[in-house]
């Protein structure tokens, strides 16, 4: 085999490797969902404080879910469906449904205590963030999991008022700050990738 032919075949191998890597790289964006849900939590807390706790949380959570679905389907319309994307959706949809049913039932049976609620939310968001960070290889998201787990423990060893403040602080760092950070990081990553692509010819 001549050197030219050998190089030609090596180029083919290189195409296979680079394209498989490119397809696996997720270009899906998640940062906006953290920001949206952070704002939704604050909205529900404010609405509850103004005097409608029975409807504030269910209505806000359903509205946030619908908004996430609509925006998500528009953003991902041109993106390929990947196993990673489906895994992410599975984790967060599963967690969201579990949390929603649990909170509704606790509220209906009069067992809704702020400290217990913050601990449950902290445990579930901590688990979801940890699983998602391991799948995506995103260390910063694991820091969010640690913050939620810390909030969970702290809420159980303090008064209701302090537990409320812990919840607000955890939302600020793990939803608002992390969401904005995620959106900036995703935008930079996508710009860098767009500039690094070359053309293939038949």
């Amino acid at each position, binding site marked *: 085999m001549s050197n030219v032919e050998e190089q030609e075949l090596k180029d083919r191998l290189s195409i*296979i490797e680079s394209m498989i890597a490119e397809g696996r790289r997720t270009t899906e964006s998640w940062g906006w969902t953290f920001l949206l849900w952070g704002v939704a939590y604050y909205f529900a807390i404010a609405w509850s404080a103004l005097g409608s706790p029975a409807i504030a949380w269910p209505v806000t959570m359903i509205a946030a879910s619908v908004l996430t679905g609509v925006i998500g389907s528009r953003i991902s319309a041109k993106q390929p469906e990947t196993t990673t994307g489906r895994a992410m959706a599975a984790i967060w949809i599963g967690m969201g449904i579990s949390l929603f049913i649990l909170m509704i039932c606790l509220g209906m049976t009069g067992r809704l205590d702020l400290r217990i609620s913050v601990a449950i939310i902290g445990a579930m968001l901590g688990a979801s963030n940890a699983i998602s960070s391991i799948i995506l290889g995103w260390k910063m998201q694991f820091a969010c999991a640690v913050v939620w787990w810390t909030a969970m423990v702290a809420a159980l060893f303090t008064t209701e008022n302090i537990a409320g403040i812990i919840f607000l602080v955890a939302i600020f760092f793990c939803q608002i700050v992390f969401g904005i950070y995620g959106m900036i990081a995703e935008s930079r990553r996508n710009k860098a990738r767009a500039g690094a692509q070359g053309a293939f010819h038949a």
Partner: protein
Amino acid sequence: MPDLPELNPVIHGKLRLALLSLLSSVEEAEFTWLRSKTASTDGNLGAQLLKLEEAGYVAVEKKFVQRKPQTLYRMTESGREALTQYVHALKQLLGSAINA
């Protein structure tokens, strides 16, 4: 000395090889996504995808999403098998030169 394998001519084209490799890593992909990843023209991309479709290596599905037409491509089982065989043949041809 064992006979050297022949490379599948349908897959051997650079763009077709890139397309099959991309499709092997996702469940399904839209035409515009494939175009952006391969930086190819609509005409060339359409022609190469048609060749892959005729060979039975990709399946196409046309649908409307939010009232906009969408063409989705998915790698078939025979496409996956053909790509695997192509990689084996490539490695066999390159032999020891593969790590050089």
